[in-house]
């Protein structure tokens, strides 16, 4: 990958790396993406463990990969490790950052969901879940809206493709991979 650095990490650096992602995990309400600016500041600006190009490529590939967006953190870890010059360190860094980002939020999610299940009959819990329902549905529609709006060129035919796929998924049982494949082909041949 372009823009690779040569760095060395001692034990205190490994601990700092783990601590950083551990903290980010607890702050990541609304998804890990909301903590991106802080990760950039820490990894690129402050410690120089990653180059700007590596950071941006990690985020872009994480988005393009199938699976949850949080995968970009796997790639951040991988590139930090690769910068020290070994595959073993790269795997170690992946495990370090992923445990950091997952342990707090996973623990909180498990305890919170257990508590909510046991107390599901309480009026407060019912009110919270039912009250949040219209908010989270509107939030999803907003997310789709925002994602459709930030097409790099913002051209009208990308909007048509977005609305057409929304309509097909909403109203038919067509498999999503067909639509994604069609989108990829249209883009590959420069039609959209």
């Amino acid at each position, binding site marked *: 990958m372009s823009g690779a650095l040569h760095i060395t990490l001692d034990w205190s650096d490994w601990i700092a790396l783990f601590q950083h992602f551990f903290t980010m995990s607890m702050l990541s309400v609304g998804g890990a993406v909301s903590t991106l600016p802080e990760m950039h500041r820490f990894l690129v600006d402050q410690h120089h463990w990653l180059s700007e190009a590596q950071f941006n490529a990690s985020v872009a590939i994480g*988005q*393009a990969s199938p699976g949850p967006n949080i995968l970009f953190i796997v790639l951040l870890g991988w590139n930090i490790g690769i910068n020290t010059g070994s595959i073993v360190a790269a795997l170690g860094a992946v495990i370090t950052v992923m445990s950091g980002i997952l342990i707090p939020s996973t623990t909180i*999610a498990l305890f919170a969901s257990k508590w909510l299940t046991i107390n599901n009959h309480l009026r407060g819990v019912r009110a919270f879940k039912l009250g949040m329902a219209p908010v989270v549905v509107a939030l999803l529609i907003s997310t789709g809206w925002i994602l459709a709006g930030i097409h790099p060129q913002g051209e009208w035919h990308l909007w048509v*493709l977005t609305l057409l796929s929304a309509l097909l998924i909403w109203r038919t049982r067509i498999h999503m991979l067909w639509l994604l494949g069609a989108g990829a082909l249209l883009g590959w041949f420069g039609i959209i």
Partner: protein
Amino acid sequence: MPHPIPKSPLDLFWSFTLIALQGFGGVVAIVQRELVDKKQWLTQEEFIEEWAVAQLLPGPNVVNLSLILGERYFGVRGALASLAGMLLFPAVIALLLAVFYGIYASHPGVAGAIRGMSAVAAGLILATGLKMLAGLQSNALGKTLCAVIGAACFVSIALLRWPLLPVLLVLGTLSGGMVYYRLKAS
């Protein structure tokens, strides 16, 4: 009528693996379709409730959702199986993509393909939200208030681009408070 449920933690692992591997640019669309429309482990109403919880907890919302459901069916073993399903194979694929990124990044077709796929992915998320509207029909808030709260959320987030957390807190408290009052009355 009883729900179908996952057979074992292994069933959860493979189900979430397949869901994650289909999820380009928005796993929630696939989760909704697989778990509600196809497998019917959850009704539309239950899915919205779980999603609300997953959304408000720290951490990635689809990962939280898989953990919550895994824990519900098979305790901690189920939660770990779901989590592993969501992350293991996708992480391997992401690493492979990263390793080969240097070769493909310069190809103009790749940039185009990613542009086309993100346009479709935006549509998938939009459709998921539209489908979930059906789950609001029987909400204790009533259709009018649901529409008002939903519209307020859309305007604040999509049009005014206000930050997520305060919007969620204000609208959630307002909406939850009204439901609380209505549940008392009935």
